[in-house]
Every structure is written in C-alpha cells, then in structure tokens.
C-alpha cells in the first residue's frame, strides 16, 4: 500500500490534522489523485490563501468532514493552523498539508503543531518522491535526490536513473548498409506499414509482424549484416 492509499484510508476513517510531508513539489502531482476519492466523502477546499484557514472558523459545520489542501508554508500560515487546531479537530476538519523538504523546518518551528499532529504525519517514501519527480519529467532533480538514498531504498530506480555509459567496439557497418538505404529510398513506398529485412540491396523478407520476420533473420547466415527497418504507413 503506497502513501496515497494509506492517506485515503486514514482520512476516510478518521478526522484530524494530517500533514503530508513531501520532498518535492513534484509530489503534488500524486496528491492531486487524492482529491477525487476524498471529494466523494468530504467537502474539499483547495486553498492558496492564508485567509481561507480563518474562513474555516466561520464556515465550519460540526460533524462535517472537511479537507483543506494547501501547499502554503510560511510561518504565519502554520501559526494560524496551530491556533485553530482545536476547532478543526472538534469539527472533524482535516487539514492536508503538502510541503517540500525545505519547508519542513517551518512545520517544526510552529509552536505545538508537531505534537498536535502526533502520529498522523505521513511522509512520502523516497521511492514515491523519485517516481513523482520522474513522472513530472524532473530527471535531474530525481538523480540528485536518489544519490542521497540507499540502494535498497531505490531498487530498480537507481539503475533506471543511472546515466548511460559508452564504450567503443569494432565497426560492424559497411557498404551493405548504404546499399540497404538506397533500396529503402527506392522501394519504401511499396512496403508501407511493414517491417523489411535487407541484406545490402536484397530484400530478405517483409512482414507486418516483427516476430515472424525476426525468425527469418535469425536463421540467415549473414544475419549480422541484415538491416531491419519499419516503414511507416
């Protein structure tokens, strides 16, 4: 069960103040997935405004589960939350706060807030953070973060993010390749939507299925010189 699953379960069974500490803004993408299941169970308030925390005091209705999403992180915001936590708890309001690692210090610095959160703090695991960064296309950030984790925590992610390595080998191309290219330029319109296998300027085979053609190629004594190409429809 991943962090988001755990969080949904806890939010729908309980109320209170929850704090989801994420190490990257990329994790916000995953948190977006929380909103749909929660919206079926609760009034969900999205906020980027500190004022809305205060508005909760006025609009809160006892017995209603309220979920407040926010990525705010300034000290005043946390102090507002801290001063309102009794009201939020009593009225079954749930505060879901998404913050980045750099802002974790803000959470800790808010008086009494961490103790009131108690065991409800759910921290995204390193793997989930990295997957979220990859999903968001932030590969450089993911690599930097992964470098701080252990191999056991990373699993296959470490290999996935590892930069490619290169080494030279004896040339395996040659004139046969250029002759195959010449054949393609001349004949490709006759084979659109098919794989073709060429040995120099000779067509060894063509097929819409790659596996069927591969069997022909593998059995050929000069397979290493054969060029296989897909011709777009």
């Amino acid at each position, binding site marked *: 069960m991943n962090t988001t699953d755990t969080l949904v379960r806890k939010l729908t069974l309980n109320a209170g103040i929850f704090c989801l500490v994420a190490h990257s803004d990329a994790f916000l993408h995953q948190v977006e997935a929380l909103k749909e299941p929660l919206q079926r169970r609760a009034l969900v308030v999205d906020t980027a405004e500190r004022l809305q925390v205060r508005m909760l005091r006025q609009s809160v209705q006892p017995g209603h589960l309220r979920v407040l999403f926010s990525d705010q992180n300034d000290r005043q915001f946390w102090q507002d939350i801290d001063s309102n936590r009794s009201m939020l708890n009593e009225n079954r309001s749930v505060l879901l706060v998404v913050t980045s690692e750099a802002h974790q210090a803000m959470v800790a610095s808010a008086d009494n807030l961490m103790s009131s959160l108690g065991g409800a703090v759910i921290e995204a695991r390193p793997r989930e953070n990295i*997957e979220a960064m*990859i*999903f968001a*296309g932030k*590969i450089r950030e993911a690599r930097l973060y992964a470098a701080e984790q252990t191999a056991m925590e990373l*699993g*296959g*992610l470490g*290999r*996935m*993010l*590892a*930069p*490619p*390595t*290169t*080494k*030279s*080998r*004896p*040339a*395996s*191309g*040659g*004139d046969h*390749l*250029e002759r195959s*290219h*010449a054949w*393609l*330029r001349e004949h*490709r*319109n006759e084979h659109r939507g098919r794989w073709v*296998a060429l040995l120099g300027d000779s067509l060894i085979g063509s097929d819409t*299925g*790659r*596996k069927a053609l*591969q069997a022909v*190629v*593998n059995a050929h004594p000069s*397979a*290493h*010189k*054969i*060029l*296989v*190409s*897909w011709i*777009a429809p």
Partner: protein
Amino acid sequence: MKRTTPSASWCSGWAEYIVDQPVNNHQLVVGVSCRIAGLPNIEHALLDTGAQWSLVGGELAELMAEFAEDLDQPIPYSTRFGRIEARAYRASVVLVASSGEDLEVEATVALAPDFRGPLVLGYRGFLEKVRVALVPATSQGETDWFGFGG
C-alpha cells in the same frame, strides 16, 4: 555516391543516416543504424532529441525484453498519440559505424508492447551522454553522415 567521411576529433564513428518520407504533419524523421540487446541484425531507429526516453514498442519490445534487464519500474511516456504504458529496462544499444568504431551504449529504455511506432533513441538514458552530429549532403548523390562519440 561520394564516400568521403567527414572528420571531427570527438567522433569515433560515422555511418549514413536516412531521412524518411514526410509523415502526417510534414515532419521529416532521421533514421540511424543500431543493434539492440540480443538480436543479431541491424535496426533502424529514429534519432529524437525531443523524446524524453528511448522507446521500443510492439513485438520488438517483446523480443528485446528477453535480453534486457527488467528494472521493475513503470516509466511515464507520452507520444503524439497519447500516453502509453511502458516499463523501464536497462539494455545494450550499439550505434553502428561504417567508418571508425561502433559505440556501445548501456542505456535505459522504455519497452511498451502496445506502442506501434518505430524504435526511438531519445534523450534520457541514451543521447544525454553521446555526442552526435548530422552532416547533411550538400548536393545530390552525396551521403548524409551521422557521427557519434562517447
């Protein structure tokens, strides 16, 4: 066809590249020659610096999966046809030279059996550590050269 290979100090290998027909929105695509893990023959791949990851689809992905290291990770991939389900593998891909030396790249590749397009050599996990050059022919009958080096 003139066979004079260009020269560049960082280039370890040269081979002809082929420019495909215009496709759909009139973009030309560049095809280069490579070998992929476990298969004896040479493949044509699209050189695509705009692709986030290298991508292998269809039955070729199934063939390659037998010889590549499964990293047990989903890999996000969006194409112009929409989002596809892909899985990350680590595999050897060799850029084939007709002059100089081949370049073997241990790369991260997305395998997506449901994708019906061509083999794509993309930026992350592959091109990001390979120096490449395209030297187009300047007159009819000349060769379009693809140069590469590690």
